[in-house]
Structure formats: structure tokens, C-alpha cells
């Protein structure tokens, strides 16, 4: 049987790229946070701290991985691997221009992947057999699944306007004519809120509300397990910024790349500048505000595309 080496390369290279990107994104985040707090940030490792992510990864992999005696060993070790697998699989949906990989129902695959990513959180929180991690996991799960519903409506609207479920087509639809950002600016705002909540980022990071939950579902993780979870989290952040760029500022590769970077930096700046909300406010924001807004907007979009 002949091995399709081109296919092998195409299947592997993007994920290596993603892992590198995640490393450098953590460096970018630390640098930007440092600039905002008027300090230097990592600057010692090689030139201006460029190799910092690699030394961090090496250090975390070599650190002790403590296993709580009462933890369930199998799920406890496998949960980070599951999280990383799921969040990397999302990158299959990257809107490549030269389509060797494309998914006709990419939007639905994205929804599936965001839903499945909850299981990793659940596994890690439950398996560590600690009160804090269980509470953190339950909170993170409730938050993620709540914000999946407005997200589903957002996808519904975007698909209605563009007329396809494929991310490539959604972005090429915007070529030449207009960004979806212009007619769908309300949806973009809701989408950004959803993405911040889905990835458990800054104003909505109740998973790691330090004062109440110590560190959420990953309290018991140390060393390598924590590193793997961290990579999973940051790769999903990068993926969501790619998706935002493709859905609302699509057109060509360069534009998607540029706006992806804008969104990635935006995530960091939001983290640096906004205080944490309260959990009940987050939930009521989702169920009473965002869901209502999205229902209204869906009706508007349905009527708009039909006239």
C-alpha cells in the first residue's frame, strides 16, 4: 500500500505549528501584561526572552507530577490528554485557502468540538477527588454549556447570511463585498462575549477565581499535567480568535491572519484591563440577555435574507 506522504505532511504540519504558536502566544501574553503593568516581562532567556516558552515547557515537563492518593488514577492522568486532543482537533477547521482539508459542515463540527471539550474539564475535576476541583469543574461546565446556546444562534445567523456551513466558504463569501462585521456587528459583540466565556478567559474566569476556588478544576494538577491543560486552553483561545476572524473579517488569508492576531491581542488586553464579574451575573447575562438578543437577531436575519 502506497503511503500518501503529502497527506501525512499536510495532516501533521499544521498541528506542530499550532503547538509552537501556543508557546509563543503565552510569551506574547506575558509581554503584553508586562507592558500594561509597566514592567519588563520575561527578558533573560536568549534574546529578549524569545526562547522562554521552550524553557517553561521543559521545566514543567521535568517537575514532579503529584498524584493525590485518593484520586482516580486513570481519568486523572488521561483528562489533560483528552483536553489537548479535543482542542487540537478544532484546528482541523482552520479555513485553509488551498483546500486539501475542508469540512462541508464545519460549523457543526465546531459546535460539537466545543461541546466535547467540557468532558475533559468534568473528568479532571471529578477524578482529582478534591472539593475545590469538583466545584470549579461544575462551575466551568455550567458556564461553557450555557454560552454554547447563544453560540449556536450566532452560527445560525452567520450560516443564513452566507448560505453555507463551510468555514472556507463563509470567509470567501465576504471577499470583495463586505465583512460580516458590518451587517452583523451586534452578533460580533455577542460572539466575543461567548468566546470569552467559552474559553474561561479574563472577565469570566470563574474557574480560577482565586479567592473562592483556588484554581478551579486544575488545583490538584502540577508539572506536566498542568502544562498539557494549559496548552489545551491556549490553543482553544487561538482557535476561537481564528474563527472570529474567519467569520466576521474574512476575505483572504492575509486579512484572516491579521484579524486573528488582533483578536488574540484583544483577549490579552481584556484580561489586563477588566475585573472579574460575579458568577450569578454571568449566568443571568447569558440566559436573559444574550439569548433574548440572539433570538431577536435571528428573526431579523431570517426576515432580512428573505426579502
Amino acid at each position, binding site marked *: 500500500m502506497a503511503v500518501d506522504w503529502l497527506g501525512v505532511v499536510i495532516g501533521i504540519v499544521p498541528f506542530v505549528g499550532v503547538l509552537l504558536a501556543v508557546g509563543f502566544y503565552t510569551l506574547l501574553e506575558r509581554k503584553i501584561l508586562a507592558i500594561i503593568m509597566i514592567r519588563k516581562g520575561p527578558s533573560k532567556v536568549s534574546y529578549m526572552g524569545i526562547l522562554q516558552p521552550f524553557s517553561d515547557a521543559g521545566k514543567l515537563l521535568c517537575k514532579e507530577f503529584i498524584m493525590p492518593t485518593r484520586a482516580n488514577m486513570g481519568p486523572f492522568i488521561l483528562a489533560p490528554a483528552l483536553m489537548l486532543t479535543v482542542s487540537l482537533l478544532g484546528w482541523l477547521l482552520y479555513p485553509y485557502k488551498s483546500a486539501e482539508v475542508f469540512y462541508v459542515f464545519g460549523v457543526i463540527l465546531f459546535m460539537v468540538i466545543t461541546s466535547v471539550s467540557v468532558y475533559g474539564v468534568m473528568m479532571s475535576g471529578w477524578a482529582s477527588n478534591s472539593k475545590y476541583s469538583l466545584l470549579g469543574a461544575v462551575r466551568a461546565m455550567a458556564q461553557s454549556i450555557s454560552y454554547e446556546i447563544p453560540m449556536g444562534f450566532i452560527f445560525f445567523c452567520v450560516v443564513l447570511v452566507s448560505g453555507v456551513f463551510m468555514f472556507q466558504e463563509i470567509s470567501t463569501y465576504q471577499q470583495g463585498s463586505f465583512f460580516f462585521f458590518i451587517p452583523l456587528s451586534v452578533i460580533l459583540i455577542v460572539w466575543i462575549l461567548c468566546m470569552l466565556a467559552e474559553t474561561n478567559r479574563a472577565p469570566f474566569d470563574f474557574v480560577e477565581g482565586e479567592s473562592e476556588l483556588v484554581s478551579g478544576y486544575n488545583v490538584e494538577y502540577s508539572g506536566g499535567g498542568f502544562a498539557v491543560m494549559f496548552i489545551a486552553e491556549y490553543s482553544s483561545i487561538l482557535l476561537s480568535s481564528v474563527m472570529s476572524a474567519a467569520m466576521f473579517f474574512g476575505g483572504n488569508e492575509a486579512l484572516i491572519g491579521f484579524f486573528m492576531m488582533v483578536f488574540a491581542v484583544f483577549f490579552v488586553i481584556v484580561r489586563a484591563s477588566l475585573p472579574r464579574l460575579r458568577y*450569578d451575573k454571568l449566568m443571568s447575562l447569558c440566559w436573559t440577555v444574550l439569548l433574548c438578543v440572539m433570538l431577536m437577531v435571528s428573526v431579523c436575519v431570517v426576515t432580512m435574507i428573505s426579502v
Partner: protein
Amino acid sequence: MVMVMSVVFVCIVSLLFTGLFLLLSEKRGLDREKCSPYECGFEPIGSARSPFSIRFFLVAVLFVVFDVEVVLLMPFAYMFLYGKSLMGILSSSGFLFILFVGLYHEYREGSLEWVG
């Protein structure tokens, strides 16, 4: 082929990371205090698998309902690719209206309020 490769590669990478840190990590003697679950320096009190708040369960139930509705909405979007009929528009708007009424009912029942 590409997709199979990607999925296999992703699985291998995450298992490799896991194997790597289990292999490379520093091994010290196990300490009773170190291996007990974190509870602010106290001895862990009671079981960690305690029953949790019913609110979260309620959110999960609501999620199931609304997510099924999102799933049922998606075919409407697919339908509009093949021509826009008045019937399609009316039925999708009606579906959204029913969803809205359902949401309003939940709101009035008070199941969307976190504290209360």
C-alpha cells in the same frame, strides 16, 4: 487521508506529552501531606464527592432543551440554501417565536435566576 492523519497525530501528540511528563518528572518520596487533596492546609473533611447544588442541574436541563432547539434550527439554514419560500420563512420565524415564549416562561418561573 489528511483527516485520518491529523486525528491520529493529535491523539499521539497528547498521549506522548502525557507519557513524557510521567517519564521525565522528578520522583520524590510520597509524603502523606503532599498527596492529600488540597484543602487550605487542613485535613480533608468528609468526602469530596458531595452532592452539588440543584441550580447547576437545572442549568444542564435547560441547556439540553435549548441545544436541541438549536439543532432543530440548523436544517432551516440548510433549507434556505435551496430557495426561500414564504412557508419556510413563516415556519422558522414561528419556531423562533415559540422558543422565545419558552424562554419567557422559564424567566417568569424563575428558573433563570441564580439566587432565589
